[in-house]
């Protein structure tokens, strides 16, 4: 505690001085104008034409009228892809957690064994995360062919990035006291990790993973569009065949799966909290 006295902040004085209200007003106006400029360029770039939306509304109405009633005659054929969709999400989450945990340990400042390990782990996590799962799916389709396995692998890799970063943050935020206490008893690095870090972060870890499961099931619906199996692939096929009654059936199934996954994930998260 006494060692802190010497190096306690030597901040420049003006940083602590209160801002004058006059300069505050100028700043506010500048920020306002800036935001407006950003919004206007966005409207221009996306070629926003509200008129098109209004005149085109009968086209949409036509499409919807052709989709009802939903075609339930081939419902049984759609159940398998639906199961595929859910299982792609489960696979992707499960293996992502297994891979992300060791990465997170290396990528957390307080548990990493060495600086290079930290940099490499952060790099791997950043790459996994910044490449969208759809792009990973395209890559894996070329590797393992069309089908759910490509989608499952894509979700795994993308989730490693998402989970790795969140888990590393949870580990960095944890109370270091128990770690120090165990270190003082002569426990080894791995022992400290498994006996102090894991029990402490377990609830957050489960919560994050369940949230990821929910998101992965939703993502896996879209992955079908690039040929990575599941209900998305059925949806794409039905669209291409202008089979709108089937499309609407699939959309209802999608709705049920998404809502179900969301509810189940929320319920489980409440249980582990």
């Amino acid at each position, binding site marked *: 505690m*006494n060692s802190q006295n010497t190096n306690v902040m030597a901040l420049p004085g003006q940083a602590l001085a209160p801002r004058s209200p006059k300069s505050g007003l100028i700043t506010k106006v500048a920020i306002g104008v800036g935001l407006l400029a950003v919004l206007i360029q966005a409207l221009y770039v996306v070629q926003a034409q509200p008129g098109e939306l209004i005149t085109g509304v009968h086209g949409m109405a036509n499409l919807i009228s052709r989709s009802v009633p939903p075609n339930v005659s081939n419902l049984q054929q759609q159940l398998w892809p639906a199961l595929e969709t859910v299982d792609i999400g489960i696979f992707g989450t499960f293996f992502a957690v297994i891979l992300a945990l060791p990465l997170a340990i290396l990528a957390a400042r307080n548990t990493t064994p060495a600086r290079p390990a930290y940099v490499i782990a952060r790099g791997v996590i950043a790459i996994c995360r910044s490449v969208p799962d759809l792009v990973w799916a395209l890559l894996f389709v070329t590797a393992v062919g069309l089908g759910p396995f490509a989608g499952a692998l894509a979700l795994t890799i993308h989730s490693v990035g998402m989970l790795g970063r969140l888990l590393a943050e949870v580990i960095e935020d944890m109370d270091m006291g128990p770690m120090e*206490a*165990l270190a003082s008893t*002569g426990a080894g690095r791995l022992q400290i990790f498994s*006996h102090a870090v894991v*029990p*402490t972060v377990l609830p957050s870890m489960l919560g994050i993973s369940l949230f990821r499961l929910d998101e992965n099931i939703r993502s896996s619906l879209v992955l079908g569009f690039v040929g990575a199996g599941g209900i998305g692939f059925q949806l794409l096929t039905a669209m291409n065949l202008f089979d709108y009654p089937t499309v609407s059936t699939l959309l209802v199934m999608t709705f049920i799966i998404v809502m179900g996954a969301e509810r189940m994930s929320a319920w489980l998260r409440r249980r582990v909290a």
Partner: protein
Amino acid sequence: MTSMQIEAKNLGMRYATGRLALQSASFTVSAGEFAVILGANGSGKSTMMRIIAGITKPTDGEVRLGGQTITTLSGRDLAKARMGLGMVFQHANLVKRRSVIANVVCGTLGRHRNLLTSLGFLPKSEFGHAMQCLERVGLTKFAHQRASTLSGGQAQRASIARALAQRPGALLADEPIASLDPEASEEVMRLLRQLAKEEGMAVLAVLHQPELARRYADRLLGLRKGVISFADAPAQVSDSQIDSLYEGFHPA
């Protein structure tokens, strides 16, 4: 537990900034003795504790634990030597989601370094010993509760049990009652004294409560600006001597 004494010889510490935190500080805490270091913030107490615990290396002098010089050790040898020294901190630092007994068993991990304990399993053979340690601090009936259910004083006693599970010969307590209420403070002080008397351990604590130190310690060590200004039995230390430690720190 084989008791051992703590010896500090001519400890000096000069930080890279040039500040002198400790100056030729020497003292011995013998087996069975409860000594308390008193001093204001910035007097060098924490530096002293860190050096004795082997966390910081002094720029001068040496620390001997049970006759073994630890200030020259590093790595595995240091870790081994430190196992003879139990540590108690300001906060109990228990893993709150685990049971009290599991937390105490964790104190023995240093002597059970293997694959199973690295994977998070507890050494089964240590539960009996851990239960004895809990009995020593009077918490047996809480053994199977989550650590989060303990009160502040109970948690601190559980952390002492964890330190005991390590089978130390000496105990180092860094402001062990700083975050406890008066009643819990008395309990912890009484316990530290008992451990010195009944287990024959050398117990060294840093405290901010001169009054409690006076009542429980065998010896008071006054630290002022990095220099030991007195080291005597409480009866031999006058109030003005204690007040002088805090002079210039508390504007009267």
